[in-house]
């Protein structure tokens, strides 16, 4: 069936509702934020409408560059860890009977009902010296004495991967379920081992899904501000933590807005770059 190009206004009508929602929930708030980022900050009070670049100028320093760099690095690491863990897991899950799959998915969904605060405090307790998992290791003779595993980079990474993993699995699941099983059968018939077939057939076949998932987890992890505070040292605080600090504790909305705009631009640029690279490789 040939799809005809929309001609009249009525043909465009299905777009009105999503368009309106996009304007109300994205364009308006985001524009407000951009506007505020140019306002003049009054250190003893709030801010006055203006058009100044001070807020951006303050951000352009080695200190904030390092924090931004760390935030991006952390988000990328979380995204990679999540996909590396979730992809084989989801693949194996799709090979189970329907009933088993449902049980697993329900369990994963229930993890999503936990708030970031609960996840943060649960992991910080698990990682303590006095009550944490290292006491278990001591009991079974793996370690000499219990140690504190938090605050550390690994604690932050663990918490964030834990939080993002259910999303990752839920995004990968539909694509893996729909994967044509004959592809794999063909590979096996031609003599490939299961691992080799998985790496050489399944992974490349779903490359676009994997890239999309990486991007989703990356963006999700970039906004995290509670877990780095609860599980990390100040050197592991992300830019989002500093934005919260400025907005809530310093009542410096213009600077917080400028940082947020910068963060959004950086992540958009990275996402764009990823898509661009992906397209070029596809074209080859």
């Amino acid at each position, binding site marked *: 069936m040939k799809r005809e190009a929309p001609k009249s206004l009525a043909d465009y009508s299905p777009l009105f509702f999503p368009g309106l929602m996009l304007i109300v929930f994205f364009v308006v708030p985001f524009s407000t934020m951009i506007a505020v980022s140019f306002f003049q*900050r*009054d*250190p*003893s*009070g*709030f801010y006055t409408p203006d058009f100044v670049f001070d807020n951006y100028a*303050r951000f352009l320093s080695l*200190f904030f560059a390092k*924090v931004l760099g760390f935030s991006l690095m952390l988000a990328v690491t979380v995204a990679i860890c999540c996909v590396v863990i979730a992809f084989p897991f989801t693949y194996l899950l799709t090979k189970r009977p329907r009933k088993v799959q449902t049980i697993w998915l329900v369990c994963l969904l229930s993890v999503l009902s936990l708030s970031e605060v609960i996840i943060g*405090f649960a992991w*910080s307790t698990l990682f*303590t*010296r*006095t*009550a944490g998992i290292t006491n278990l290791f001591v009991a079974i003779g793996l370690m000499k004495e219990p140690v*504190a595993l938090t*605050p550390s980079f690994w604690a932050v990474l663990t918490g964030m991967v834990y939080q993002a993993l259910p999303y990752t699995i839920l995004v990968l699941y539909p694509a893996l379920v729909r994967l044509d099983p004959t592809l794999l059968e063909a590979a096996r018939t031609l003599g490939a081992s299961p691992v080799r077939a998985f790496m050489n057939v399944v992974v490349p076949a779903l490359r676009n899904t994997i890239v999309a998932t990486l991007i989703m987890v990356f963006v999700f992890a970039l906004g995290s501000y509670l877990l780095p*505070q*609860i599980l990390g*040292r*100040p*050197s592991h*605080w992300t830019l989002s933590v*500093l934005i919260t*600090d400025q907005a*809530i*504790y*310093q*009542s*410096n909305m213009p*600077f917080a807005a400028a940082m947020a705009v910068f963060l959004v631009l950086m992540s958009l640029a990275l996402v764009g770059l990823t898509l661009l690279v992906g397209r070029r490789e596809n074209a080859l």
Partner: protein
Amino acid sequence: MTKILNHPISRRAVLGAGVASASLLAMPSILRAQDKSIKIGVYGGYFKKSFDEHIFPEFTKATGIAVESVAEPTGEAWLVQLEQAAKAGQAPADLSMMSQTSMLKGQSTELWAPLDLAKIKNSSNLLDHFVNKYPDGRVAGIGAVAWYITLVTNTNVFATAPDSWAAFWDPANADKLGLLALASNSFLLEVTATTFMGGTKALDTEEGIQKALEKLAEVKPNVRLWYRDEAQFEQALKSGEIPMGQYYHDVTGLAAAEGQPVRSTFPKEGGIQDSGSWVLSRASKKTEEAHAFIDHMCQPAVQSLMSRKVGTAPTVKRELLDLTPEQFAGVSSDIPPILPRYDLYTTKADWINQKWTELIVG
């Protein structure tokens, strides 16, 4: 103490309160029926609970004015909400208890309606520095309660209590401290200046502040946790996970009374004294009721009641109170306190914040 358990109330709650108050005003009959009422914001959690149980009912009994208490989040966040609401002509709370830094910031935008001391007879009982004034002499706020931030330790880990803030700098305490994460609520610059630089006057110049920051940087290897959320530190202190730090004297006292292995010590340099003031939003129409409430709260008997029931230090003169020496020692100390340099957090707010962030994050 202010901030114990003060889980910020949600935006929805504030909006809800706004809608509720608007609809209340829109219905004159109901308004008339509740002629004598006032909405008062106090820090949420333990603080609000104590006020609801012991303080507000007494006031209603004495004056016939009903009190609707509102849980407010930490000072800075509440300030932003009050300011936004006032711009729209709304007052989520008529009276609020405000920390000093936020109180000063609110002054710069004239957020606080001036108070008339003639209608607050009992204000003469107050210690002088608990009357907050605009630069031109109008009264912006009246001291509500005072509290101390002191040196706290876990008694299982530290058999004897340290007697000086200098313990924070002791290399033996590596990775053992829990400190507040913001310059404007930890007041560690003042502590450093008092302990090593002969007093907070050393912070008058930017060079002085820089020196204090450098001295403070030596503490970093000892700090395990820079906390924003009190619950996070309190738990770690009780379990001995983080056995030393700075915390609120009153809450630590309550925990010790419950049998937890914690103690609060007034160091020889003094505890940090901070306080909350009653302020009236300029959008409020309950001026009369607000004055009546503040007047009620300035009575020595009510201040004594708060010290006994809420655990805060009084803002009225010591000789007017009927507290026993033990009760007074429980909430205060005879060692002269370290008074925060609130002026720094308004005049040099961004500069200090930047240096501070670089200090702890860098």
